[in-house]
């Protein structure tokens, strides 16, 4: 079920795993900033970051032998879906929890998702 990584893949695993988290944060940051500032030009850059995350995840999955056994690809899919949807979901929650204040502000963030 668990096939240990080969020595040659150590660096790929460390680097791609770090990139997953860093690009996940960059995607979330740009996504939120684009919505907040009503700047649609940032959104493609946000999704470009997500594509980077996607590629990093595939490199990680390959180097860590995640695609060779039945359960581990599920984790890969969960990660990809989780990182994609989490910023959307949290944005919904932000808009909902701050709804009262937004009625009186000029900096009303976009509600369309």
């Amino acid at each position, binding site marked *: *079920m*668990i*096939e*240990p*990584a080969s*020595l040659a893949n*150590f660096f790929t*695993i*460390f680097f791609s*795993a*770090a990139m*997953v*988290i*860093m690009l*996940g*944060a960059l*995607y*979330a*940051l740009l*996504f*939120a*900033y684009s919505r*907040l*500032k009503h700047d649609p030009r940032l959104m493609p850059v946000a999704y470009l970051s997500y594509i980077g995350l996607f590629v990093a995840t595939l490199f*990680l999955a390959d180097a*860590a*032998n*995640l695609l060779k056994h039945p*359960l*581990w690809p599920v*984790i890969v899919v*969960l*990660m990809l879906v*989780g*990182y994609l949807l*989490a*910023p959307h*979901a*949290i*944005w919904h*929650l*932000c808009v909902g*929890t*701050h709804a*009262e*204040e*937004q009625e*009186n*502000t000029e*900096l009303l*963030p976009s509600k369309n998702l």
Partner: protein
Amino acid sequence: MATTIGRLDGANLNGGQKLAVKYFFVAMILFGAQILFGMVAGLQYLKPDLFYGVLDFSVNRMVHVNAMIVWMLYGFIGSVYWMLEEESQHEVVGLKLGNLIFYVLTAAVTVVVLVYLFVQIGPGEQSSIWLINEGREYIEAPRWADIGIVVSVLVFFYNVAATFSKGKYTGIAGVLVLDLLALFGIYFAGMFYTTNISIDQYWWWWVIHLWVEATWEVLVACIMAYGLMKVLGVRRKIVETWLYIEVALMFGSGILGLGHHYFWIGTPEYWFTIGGLFSALEPIPLVAMVVHAVFDAGAKHIKNSNHPAMAWLIAHAFGNFFGAGVWGFMHTLPQINLYTHGTQWSASHGHLAFFGAYATIIIAVFYLAMQQWRGKVWMAGDLPGNGWKWKWALGLLNMGMVGMTVALLISGYEQSQIERAIGGSTWMGYFAAQAHPWFMQGMWWREVFGTMFAAGFVILMWDLWSIGKHETRPMQVAASQE
């Protein structure tokens, strides 16, 4: 309450806060002890005969780690007492008992450390388990001290729960009381022995993981919620809603992340899969918080009342993200964790995560406490000397920690290859890795950055002692204007 601006005056504090500053004072001493013993232990990697037979590496390392656990626990207890009366709108119930327990606990900690230092070697027997050292890494305190810790946390729980019961019961109160119950209960898992080492280690991890990655995280979330209301004036309704969301996300992924520790101790293999799955999901709440932070920062024009505290809260957000998120995920999957677990990789992750997630937020509360203790004094911009002391302390402590983390990472990377992957975790592999130039260079750099960190600590203590002294301006009111 009459206040005297610019002077340390107990009249500026309520009962809970007076008790809190006692906890903070001991926490600072133990923080210093942690750094001192850590630096000596680090030197012993480079000069193995240093203090041999006088202050052995095993003892130094134990005091270094135990001092960290205890100073953070003191910091958390102090932080909760600090906010208790304001949050509950009621005097602390059982304050005398709380004060008594503070002195008993502090005396017990002192005795335990003295025993560690003066009784360093000898056979392990039933009596030594009860009186000298229980033998479990990180929670070495002898059994009598274990019982003392449980009683102290129970009294602390009583103080907090009873105060909230008689006063105002807020959302923060609800989360806090339940969390303290867990903090008290989980410690029991590390207090009994079984003759099977796998079963013993299985339960031992419950204390280590569930204290640190569950109950402490929730405590920090409560302190953060209070800190945001105090420093930025964020509304309670929003803070509490987010407290629930973040606690749910952390528990959802963190509890079963326990499996990412179950290596080399004989637990069933399915734990690797469980640990791998939930560890992979653990950073998602951190990424989600980025969205919330951007939303809040963009939707508000913020005036903060305490610049050093705010800076440390920001350091907390980054430190938690990098230390727990990035450094954790880099080696959390079992396919690689098999090689890195227990090497300096773990130490690298541990240093940045503990500092980023916990030390930073406790330091932020120290600054809030000093502001109040000096009579709600000005601590926003335009401080004397442009606030150079808090800025240098912040810079040196953070750069020192990042430097140590990278140095340990290099040594750990080498260990995972030479000792584990090539050497097959044999003794020969272990010593080959320890003698390798890359390992030694990492250890040297760790010591250099450790010195930088120690310098930052000295300036931090100086600043905490002097900030706001002779200041005549009252505190700037925190406001988050829509």
